[in-house]
């Protein structure tokens, strides 16, 4: 059946309620809501969440925004926590201690700090062990909850509170880690990179695949942060669109090792268009700093080409065969 957002909204009530305290213009709640909407109506979910914006804004005692079962313990361990619940499900199911018709799905959410950095070990372990779960990283490119500190997901040159653009050092001096590729190296049945754009088709469909693929799956979703990135709150969807039109954030999936780029812009836009509306890159547009934009563009181009190559290489044998 063709994707139809109106129909989905009409037939699948949101599992992530309004009234949470995420900021206006934040990308993360859109991610949470869309991912959960991909669940079949009769399926139940256990959601595990890392400490971070999403957790502290959605479950402040005694209120919760989550209509499914939800668990949070600490910053670095949403994956292990989810894995434990999944192991319990497997065990109780096997022993006949749960209703036969019960279908519970396991979904973990973490920001880039809780996923690329402090939670990387927990994530890697859970994925390697093959738990039937989905880990969703909502990547906003810094430790936003504690006040915009740089993470390994922060793009080069970004101005953050621990990589401030100063007189001598112009922002973060290291490139962004490519977590999706690290997860690809785990040879999981499903790995994808997505974003909430247009009618959310890309994110919805990838979430559905991730949730209903047996075994471990990983979704890396760009989730802009108006406070950390410095864009007007009503510009969220435009920023998302620019991220994919410039190929800063390519949309692709890896199914059983085969790469498939799910969106290839007909005319790749220059990276300035993505950088310009964001306060964190403001210093890059000062006279004399043209080299920074050039370097940034080169990095984007290099990574995009690498992805095109991977797509070609991993699909070559099947095309020949």
């Amino acid at each position, binding site marked *: 059946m063709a994707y139809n957002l109106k129909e989905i909204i009409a037939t699948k009530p949101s599992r992530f309620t309004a009234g949470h305290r995420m900021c206006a213009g934040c990308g993360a709640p859109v991610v949470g809501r869309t991912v959960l909407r991909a669940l079949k109506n009769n399926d*139940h979910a*256990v959601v*595990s969440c890392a400490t971070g914006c999403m*957790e*502290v804004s959605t*479950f*402040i*005692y*005694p209120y*919760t925004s*989550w*209509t*499914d*079962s*939800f*668990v*949070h*313990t*600490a910053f*670095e*361990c949403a994956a*292990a*926590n*989810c*894995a*434990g*619940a*999944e*192991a*319990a*499900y*497997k*065990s*109780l199911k*096997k*022993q006949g*201690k*749960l*209703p036969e018709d*019960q279908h*519970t799905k396991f979904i973990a959410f973490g920001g880039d700090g809780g996923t690329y950095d402090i939670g990387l*070990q*927990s994530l*890697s*372990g*859970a994925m*390697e*062990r093959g738990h039937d779960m989905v880990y969703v990283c909502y990547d906003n490119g810094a430790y936003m909850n504690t006040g915009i500190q740089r993470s390994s997901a922060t793009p080069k040159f970004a101005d953050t509170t621990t990589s401030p653009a100063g007189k001598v050092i112009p922002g973060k001096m290291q490139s962004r880690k490519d977590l999706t590729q690290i997860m690809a190296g785990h040879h999981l049945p499903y790995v994808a990179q997505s974003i909430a754009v247009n009618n959310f088709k890309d994110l919805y469909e990838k979430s559905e695949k991730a949730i209903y693929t047996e075994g471990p799956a990983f979704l890396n979703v760009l989730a802009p942060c108006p406070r950390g990135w410095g864009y007007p709150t009503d510009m969220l969807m435009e920023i998302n669109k620019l991220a994919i039109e410039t190929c800063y954030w390519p949309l692709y999936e890896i199914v059983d090792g085969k790469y498939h780029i799910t969106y290839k812009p007909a005319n790749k836009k220059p990276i300035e268009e993505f950088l310009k509306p964001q306060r964190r890159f403001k210093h890059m547009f000062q006279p004399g700093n043209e080299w920074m934009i050039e370097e940034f563009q080169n990095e984007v181009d290099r990574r995009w080409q690498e992805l095109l190559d991977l797509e070609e290489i991993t699909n070559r044998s099947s095309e020949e065969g």
Partner: protein
Amino acid sequence: MGIRERLSGNEAAAIAMKQINPDVVAAFPITPSTEIPQYFSTFVSNGQVDTEFVAVESEHSAMTACIGAEAAGARAMTATSANGLSLMWEQIYIASSLRLPIVMSLVNRAVSGPLNIHNDHSDAMGVRDSGWIMLFSENNQEAYDNLLMAHRIAEHKDVLLPLMVCQDGFITSHSIENIELLEDDKAKAFVGSYKPEHYLLNKDEPIAIGPLDLQAFLFEHKYQQAEAMRNAKKVIAEVSKEFEELTGRKYSFFEEYKLDDAEIAIVCMNSTAGTTKYVVDQLRKNGIKAGLLKVRMFRPFPTEEIAKALSNLKAVAVLDKADSLNGAGGALFEDITSAMFVNKVQIPVVDYVYGIGGRDTTSNDIESVYNDLIEIVKNGGTNDFYRYLGVRK
């Protein structure tokens, strides 16, 4: 009549776990507790248990997975030692705050640094304020028995707290001793099945666990934890009594060995109690009225009962297998002395930090402590109450 066997402390713990047949075990190898998940994964591989064994990538994940599993509605267990417990530390506090009755086998070992794999109690003392029930075991039999009682205590509706069963690394974990096991069916019947009231996998009642808990509620939640710990005392007494009826093996908050008419006594935990009993017997032959108080239930701490049990002595020595490095004495010493003070028991007490990093503690060492006590009684007290036993200064 139970089954007579010869097992190491680790084997005894693994056999107890097999009989408990938990739904999930998540564990990571660390000396000297490694053998427990090792033996247990064999039971899993051979289909002797229904358990889902999660071979995690760290102890932090071991405790986190146990939290996830227990919150989901499963019985979850783990085993660790020393630095493994240190790495779990963050989650140890969270497990108790979420009121999840996880059971852990803690095989006591010195916490780094520098690195040392041998026995002392620095790992357990590091989590003494974490809200876990802590039971100590003199030998393999007690480690086994305490584990069989563990779920009955931890899962009691008035308690709902995680529980750790401690035993001494290598000294008992790797020593083979005689043991009496319960038959599988009797053990299973005693432990019973786990029926949580609220759990993640109840799809008809989805719940949220682990909130952001701010000024308006955290204090009340902590008070409830404290209340649960106080309730645990009564439950531990009841479960121990029931266990005694089943096995004939009597367990109290602490064991009093020839303490009734004693004039001097040692207070200690775990395997050192065995050595001390031998010394007490030798001293008694020479007419010295020596006794021993072996603490089994360290958390909750039986303040009043201990003070009462020590009240007729003329001098007491507390043996601490971990130094608090506070310039004032070990943790057990502080608990014992404050218990005595608030209960108005005023007799000389002296602390001995001993056995650190697996330093052997011989019967001669223990005898020297009793000799010091005789001296203290003779002199009417001492100001030198923070001492070391067997260290080269």
